[in-house]
């Protein structure tokens, strides 16, 4: 093939430009840290990157849901703990009142203390997580237990509908404990209080027998609730640590798709630089000489 200066120049220029643009692309990968800067760099990779990025955002959100579930559950837990302590105290007072050495005035005092204890149990059960009453179900703005009325109203005013938190794709957990589950305990304590207050012998006998065994049964139910709440908390914790693992996995996947593989990129860059320098050298050597240099006029 016949070779001319201009075709040699054009070829040399095209080669230099090609090498330089490869080098620019690789150095952009190295300096930017991203293998994909726009979809056309790797269409399939971008597809995956878009999905992984959404998954990551979703996982972070599920973890924050789990934190919200935890705060709801711990508010419930501490309220139940307080109620449990109060129940203990009521039981002690019952045994004290049933003792023959306690006189009528003493029983009245016990009845009065029990009334205070029941009110404070109800106040504990009016606990909130954020601005939601935790024992009201979805009627989160309604106080579950009213402490102001006379005669006292020990029934729950919540709607008993489940409050759920989403702690993973398609995974929901019920975080609330219905107030109705505590009505039994309150009514057992109220029965004791009433019977001690009335002071009749029959009532005293009932307090020492039927009422006490009712209280024990309700207390048993309370510790059942306590352990259910603990189980919920465990479930939320387990979900959160699964979410943390998943975050790490997806982060690695995203990085694998999107980020520059420095070992490869730097090796490529070094090879391209060497190629570019060789091309420059060859071009300088080829385009300089001409027959003109050797012809003397």
């Amino acid at each position, binding site marked *: *093939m*016949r*070779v*001319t*200066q*201009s*075709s040699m120049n*054009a*070829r040399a220029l095209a080669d230099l430009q090609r090498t330089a643009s490869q080098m620019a692309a690789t150095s952009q990968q190295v300096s930017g840290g991203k293998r*994909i800067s*726009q*979809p*056309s*760099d*790797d*269409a*399939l990779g*971008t*597809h*995956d*990157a*878009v*999905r992984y*990025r*959404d998954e990551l*955002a*979703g996982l*972070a*959100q*599920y973890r*924050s*849901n789990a934190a*919200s*579930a935890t705060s709801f559950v711990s508010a419930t837990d501490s309220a139940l703990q307080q109620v449990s302590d109060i129940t203990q105290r009521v039981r002690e007072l019952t045994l004290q009142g049933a003792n023959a050495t306690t006189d009528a005035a003493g029983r009245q005092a016990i009845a009065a203390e029990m009334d205070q204890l029941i009110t404070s149990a109800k106040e504990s059960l009016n606990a909130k997580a*954020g*601005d*939601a*009453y935790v024992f*009201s*179900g*979805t*009627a*989160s*703005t*309604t106080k579950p237990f009213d402490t102001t009325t006379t005669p006292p109203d020990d029934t729950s005013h*919540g*709607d008993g*509908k489940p*409050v*759920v*938190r*989403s702690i993973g*794709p*398609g995974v*929901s957990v019920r975080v609330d404990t219905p107030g109705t589950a505590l009505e039994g305990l309150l009514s057992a304590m109220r029965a004791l209080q009433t019977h001690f207050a009335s002071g009749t012998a029959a009532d005293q006998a009932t307090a020492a027998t039927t009422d006490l065994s009712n209280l024990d049964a309700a207390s048993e139910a309370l510790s059942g609730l306590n352990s259910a709440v603990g189980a919920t908390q465990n479930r939320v914790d387990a979900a959160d640590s699964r979410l943390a693992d998943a975050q790490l996995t997806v982060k690695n996947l995203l990085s694998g798709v*999107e980020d520059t593989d420095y070992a490869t990129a730097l090796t490529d860059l070094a090879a391209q630089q060497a190629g570019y320098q060789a091309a420059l050298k060859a071009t300088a050597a080829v385009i300089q000489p*001409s*027959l*003109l240099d050797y*012809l003397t006029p």
Partner: protein
Amino acid sequence: MPISSFSGLNVSLRALLAEQRGLDTTAQNIANANTVGYTRQEAVFSASTPYQVQAGALQNGAGAQLGQGVDVLTYQRVRDQFSDLQFRAQQMTLGQQQTVAEGLDQAQDLLSEPGDSGLQSMLSKFFDSWQTLASNPTSTAAQNAVLGQAKIVTDQLNAVAKGLTDLQANAAGQITNLLDPNGPVKAKADEIAQLNVAIGQATALGQQPNDLLDRRDQLLDDLSKVGSVSVTDQGNGRISVGFGGVTPPLVDATNTVNLPAAASITSASGGTLGGLADLASPTGTVASLLTDLDGIASGLATSVNTAYGSAFFSGATAAAITVGATSVTAAGATEGPGGNARALAVAGQREQGPTLATYADFVARVGAEQAGAAQKATTAQTLAAATEERRQSVNGVSMDEEMTNLVRFQRGYQAASRAFSTMDEMLDVLINRTGRVGL
């Protein structure tokens, strides 16, 4: 019949003149070594018609033919027409794919994916905001955040749809500009028509209008990047030029320029025009991307509205989608204010709804289309460069060759001069000294 003593002078004269023409041609080649579209020329030498010496000139009584020197037969353009066709075909593909690649590059810039400012990030935050609302059903801040994120999503969908529509409108506008009566296509076509006249006249006189032909070929090369070019020989060196696959031809058999209507341009027209038509057409690449985007918008609206149980989004296209709701409720119909059934149902659309999956497919499609067009453009560029190199190998000026020719013609001129002066000396002896014995 005897041969004139001065015959040899004439032979030398012709040689001198011919070598001089050779030098002239070499000088012209060197002068135009860097002229785009220039074809190297060659002075074609031929021995002159011999002088017929009558019978009896030779010992055996036969006649003879006596050489009369050299003539320049023609100044030939060294060009391969087949390379021209190949080059123009590649230029056409290059023009088309470059235009499409640039257009789609703008389209993918609109998406700004993968990153934190694209629709994916906004959709993620939108669904996150529903989750946050589900955790804080009565929080006004969480309710407002849902509405705010939804607005950001619809704004982005509107903006991308508008960007794509603008891209189509710009492409249509560029077609009109290219085909404007004051535009580049008209100017080139007019010049071709003028060159046709000049070339026709020169050819009729038996001349070889090399430089005019070069200029016309250059114009055809330029046009081939704008649209497909087909050349038909009309005799006497004139050509008609079909352009963009449109009838009537751009320059017709009667040398009239017919500018194609913008509406007649399709993606089959090739070149920049074909690429622009592909971008602008309601059935083209950008239009189909817009359809996909509309599908994403209506899918989002349907899935969220169904999950929410009433019209949260309104509008079923990417350009028209807006947030219809003015307030949001997390709780389901039978729940108290602390319920979150609706919020959870909407948030669940992140995994169950089609939006993010179809969007990821969409982004991948834009990327793949752009990469495909860019790849085709690169291939066409490489092929065009290779064809150009092949063409240059035939019609390009090689300095080494011209230098060699320079020396060759210079020596030829010197030798012819020497022959001339030798003959002159001979005649000097004959004329000035013969018959001067004893003077």
